[in-house]
């Protein structure tokens, strides 16, 4: 194939890169410098960093995302670990993936029923004599539902890194006299670190900006960065402010990526040893 036909062949992909990757990101940065009247200004950023509401919102979003990620991780790691030991583990991991094929909205909607005043959860709590609670539209239910939705995405990378561990490492560890607990902390856990890192990355970043869940399950009370972006773009039509929050989200996303991308660090560690 000569260069000319190659160039024509590659055009759709290059166009996509330009139009749908570079241009939109650029536009968000560009719009963040304009106010509602369309004048160039730094006011959006000034507002963001001067107002207690936006800073509190940022802190809230980070806190919620952190809790969601932590809960998902605590539930998922043992899950991935035990599945990796099962005989038909391929089948079981398929069962973990299956719920992700069901529309996110439907799962959120299910919780509206489950958590409602006479839903299943309250029925159970009544049955055990714990009384009826108002659960829908609380922060706790928002965090738990978000964690529920993210669990499969946390299990998968951890499971993959567990399955990749060469069985003879474990046998060697036992052979050298390590207990099961020592083998876990000194061999298995360090070797699954990449899996944990990519799981954290996959869960934390979307959790920063959830708006659909906070609206449906959290009610309109919790305003996270995601809901703020949605509000500014679709309700108050203040795209400048919305873009500014967007830029803050993008920057925090990059920070998370840098913190969890440890390929280079790992090499450094190896050299140090």
């Amino acid at each position: 194939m000569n260069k000319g036909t190659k160039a024509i062949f590659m055009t759709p992909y290059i166009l996509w890169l330009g139009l749908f990757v570079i241009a939109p990101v650029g536009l968000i940065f560009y719009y963040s410098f304009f106010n509602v009247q369309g004048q160039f200004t730094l006011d959006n950023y000034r507002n963001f960093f001067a107002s207690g509401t936006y800073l509190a919102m940022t802190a809230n979003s980070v806190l919620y995302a952190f809790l969601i990620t932590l809960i998902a991780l605590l539930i998922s790691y043992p899950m991935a670990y035990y599945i990796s030991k099962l005989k038909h583990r391929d089948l079981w991991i398929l069962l973990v993936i299956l719920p992700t094929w069901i529309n996110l909205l439907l799962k959120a909607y299910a919780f509206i029923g489950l958590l409602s005043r006479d839903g299943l959860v309250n029925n159970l709590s009544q049955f055990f004599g714990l009384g009826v609670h108002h659960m829908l539209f609380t922060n706790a239910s928002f965090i738990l539902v978000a964690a529920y939705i993210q669990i499969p995405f946390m299990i998968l990378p951890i499971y993959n890194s567990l399955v990749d561990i060469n069985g003879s490492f474990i046998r060697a560890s036992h052979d050298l006299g390590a207990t099961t607990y020592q083998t876990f902390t000194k061999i298995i856990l360090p070797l699954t670190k990449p899996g944990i890192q990519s799981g954290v990355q996959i869960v934390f970043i979307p959790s920063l900006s959830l708006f659909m869940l906070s609206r449906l399950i959290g009610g309109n009370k919790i305003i996270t960065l995601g809901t703020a972006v949605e509000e500014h773009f679709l309700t108050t039509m203040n795209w400048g402010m919305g873009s500014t929050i967007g830029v803050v989200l993008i920057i925090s996303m990059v920070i998370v990526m840098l913190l969890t991308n440890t390929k280079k660090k790992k090499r450094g560690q190896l050299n140090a040893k």
Partner: protein
Amino acid sequence: MQSKASKFGKFYLIFIFLLLYIPIAYLIIYSFSKGTTMANFHGFTLKHYQDLFADKRMLAIFLNTILIALLSSLISTIIGTIGAFAVHNARKRHTKQTLLSLNSILLVSPDVIIGASFLIFFTSLSVPLGFWSVLLSHIAFEIPIVLLMVLPRLNEMSPSLINAALDLGATPSQILSQIIIPYIQPGIIAGFFMAITYSLDDFAVTFFVTGNGFTTLSVEIYSRARQGIDLEINALSGIMFIFSLILVLVYYFIESHNVSKGRKKNRLEAVE
């Protein structure tokens, strides 16, 4: 690593699997309830399914969603595969890395950012919001996942396969159609199915770029759910669950068909 799971492990697995599936089961069970809320099962009925199928608007939205999913997956599979070639053929390491990073931007960006930035983009180009803006957006965010599914196949293909075809006198287009495409086909199929799930699952991006006239299922469920429980949605989730299952089965059928070929090879290698 494989050894036996402990008793506690088994109990834990069962517990979490129950948690994972209860919400889904709950939804579907109540789609057969005579009541109007997801509480206190009132006896079996198919009324909600009948309502759903009689709902012309819902049917149209369902068809729209499928149309968008199929069309966008088809187009993104083609462009994503081309992109995989672009990355694979990049001579310099630096170019390759840059292309891969650009490719992953849409994969790691929060949906809200993608939706908002696409909204700005379409508005500044005066693209009317509706079918076309939704279709273009879906194509856009599906391309990177297709690329990631195809690229590993391209990378593991031995360059001597292409040299061998050249050596035997094949032209570049013959090599592409008879050697390369069949080789990377499993990656292309996986990419296509991933693209379909991304499209069917998307809510946030569509919500931003859909405008007034055009709706997909996710957006429709969202606006109905905000108004409270409506067992027609439960019926819809029943249908979509079956639909997802069929999709999974079709995919795994195709996949295992490919894998069984690979297995035979492994067996032979083990024998030698």
